[in-house]
């Protein structure tokens, strides 16, 4: 009888306990990674997963005794990942978990940095600045002293320009609805981007770029102002600005690979090229620019690269 009771109650309990530990089941962060689909619905799927998980594990308060420290840290990592893949998607969830980590004394440098990155990626400048002030010992990436939001973008995607003369960034809308526009998604710190940017400085490509060619950094959790400022001073014809909000960009969900080239005409998406495998990609881009030019009849050859709209 005792043995039967043991089999009925103790073994299932042990099995449940094993499954509930982070070692016994895929971690929450792993689950988020498994939800990467490279399809437009990825954001919705990740948001729904995080919402369900928060409701199940936290309820009204993430600092519940039933939630182990390990699980709470895993939840924080999952919330950070969701907000890294889709900036601004679930900031409050990340904040709630972080508050619980703080209450338990579990918020280490990594957890603080991840919340900081969540704020920066979502362009929540003041929240990021507060975090910098609250944890001075961590030397978090500083936020520029002056944040100039500029005029209302009016439905256009917006970018932030880095001032060369003061500690400031200025937001400005990009009107992509007129003429021919080439968006170059790149980052001066990324090796493949740098190879592409070097090729774009060669006359064969440089002279074929539309007058309105914009170099845009994806909405990342770091704005890396010193690097951008330096690059922009060194290569003013390849002035990099960083994207404001991910959702404002109209041409597809997967444009943030580095590097990516998006060609638009009169606001209509014409083509996307990804990566810089070598000279052959330069030839593709060249052919694309020439073909598009023929179709539209807009003679832009030789106009060089515009630094500003």
């Amino acid at each position, binding site marked *: 009888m005792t043995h039967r009771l043991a089999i009925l109650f103790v073994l299932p309990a042990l099995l449940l306990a094993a499954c509930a530990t982070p070692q016994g089941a895929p971690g929450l962060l792993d689950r988020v990674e498994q939800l990467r689909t490279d399809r437009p619905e990825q954001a919705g799927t990740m948001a729904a997963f995080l919402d369900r998980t928060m409701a199940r594990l936290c309820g009204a308060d993430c600092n519940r005794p039933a939630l182990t420290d390990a699980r709470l840290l895993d939840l924080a990592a999952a919330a950070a990942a969701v907000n*890294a893949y889709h900036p601004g998607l679930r900031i409050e969830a990340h904040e709630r978990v972080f508050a619980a980590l703080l209450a338990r004394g579990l918020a280490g440098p990594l957890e603080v940095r991840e919340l900081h990155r969540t704020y920066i990626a979502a362009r929540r400048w003041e929240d990021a600045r507060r975090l910098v002030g609250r944890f001075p010992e961590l030397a978090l990436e500083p936020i520029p002293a002056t944040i100039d939001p500029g005029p209302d973008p009016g439905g256009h995607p917006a970018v932030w320009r880095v001032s060369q003369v003061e500690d400031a960034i200025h937001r400005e809308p990009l009107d992509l609805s007129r003429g021919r526009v080439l968006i170059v998604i790149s980052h001066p710190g990324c*090796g493949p981007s740098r190879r592409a940017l070097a090729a774009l400085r060669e006359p064969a490509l440089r002279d074929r770029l539309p007058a309105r060619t914009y170099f845009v950094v994806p909405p990342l959790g770091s704005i890396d102002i010193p690097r951008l400022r330096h690059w922009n001073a060194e290569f003013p014809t390849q002035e990099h600005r960083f994207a404001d909000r991910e959702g404002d960009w109209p041409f597809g969900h997967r444009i943030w690979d580095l590097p990516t080239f998006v060609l638009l005409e009169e606001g209509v998406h014409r083509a996307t090229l990804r990566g810089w495998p070598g000279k052959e990609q330069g030839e593709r881009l060249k052919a694309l620019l020439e073909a598009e030019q023929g179709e539209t009849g807009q003679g832009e050859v030789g106009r060089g690269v515009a630094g500003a709209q």
Partner: protein
Amino acid sequence: MRLSVLLVTLCCALLLLLAAPVQASQPVSPRSAEAAAEVENVEVEDAEASDAATAKFCQVKRLRDHMDLLNAPIRSHRDLARHLRLARDEGSPLFALSNEARRRFLASLSFNENGLTGYRYDDLERELTATQAYLILALFGSQSDVARFPKLREKTSLDRELKATSKLQCSNGDWVDFQCVARATCRAITRYICKATC
């Protein structure tokens, strides 16, 4: 034995650092010619350094990184398979990882003709000391990456010294939290590093 190899490597690096002026790389083989070409492609980053000494440091470090890559024992999946076959008898730094973490790490490795182009780093950070991670990454010529991973454990003074190098980071085109998904294409994926060689 491994520790002494590591110390010798570090001493050589230090000597290289102190040797000035730095000579332009003279290709001695097709592989080093490729490395020289890569150096040219990323030369602009040196100018980011705030002073001449840092610029010089970064220049030397970048050259050393390229030489590490050229001399790496594992530069392809084929090299990796050979290493794993021999590892049963001769041992390997990879055994510092748990079985599951080692499986994930090995599955994440990507290569092209320049060698390693990317890998997943979170298991290294979770399970290893800085020295253990250094020894694993040295198999692929990417040992200088240890400076990018602040969570690596510190158990010895060597661990502390290796991690301290992170305070003097030089941009070499490697991009953290991106994965090399195709030739010269980095995509935002957490826990991966997209190498400049992608």
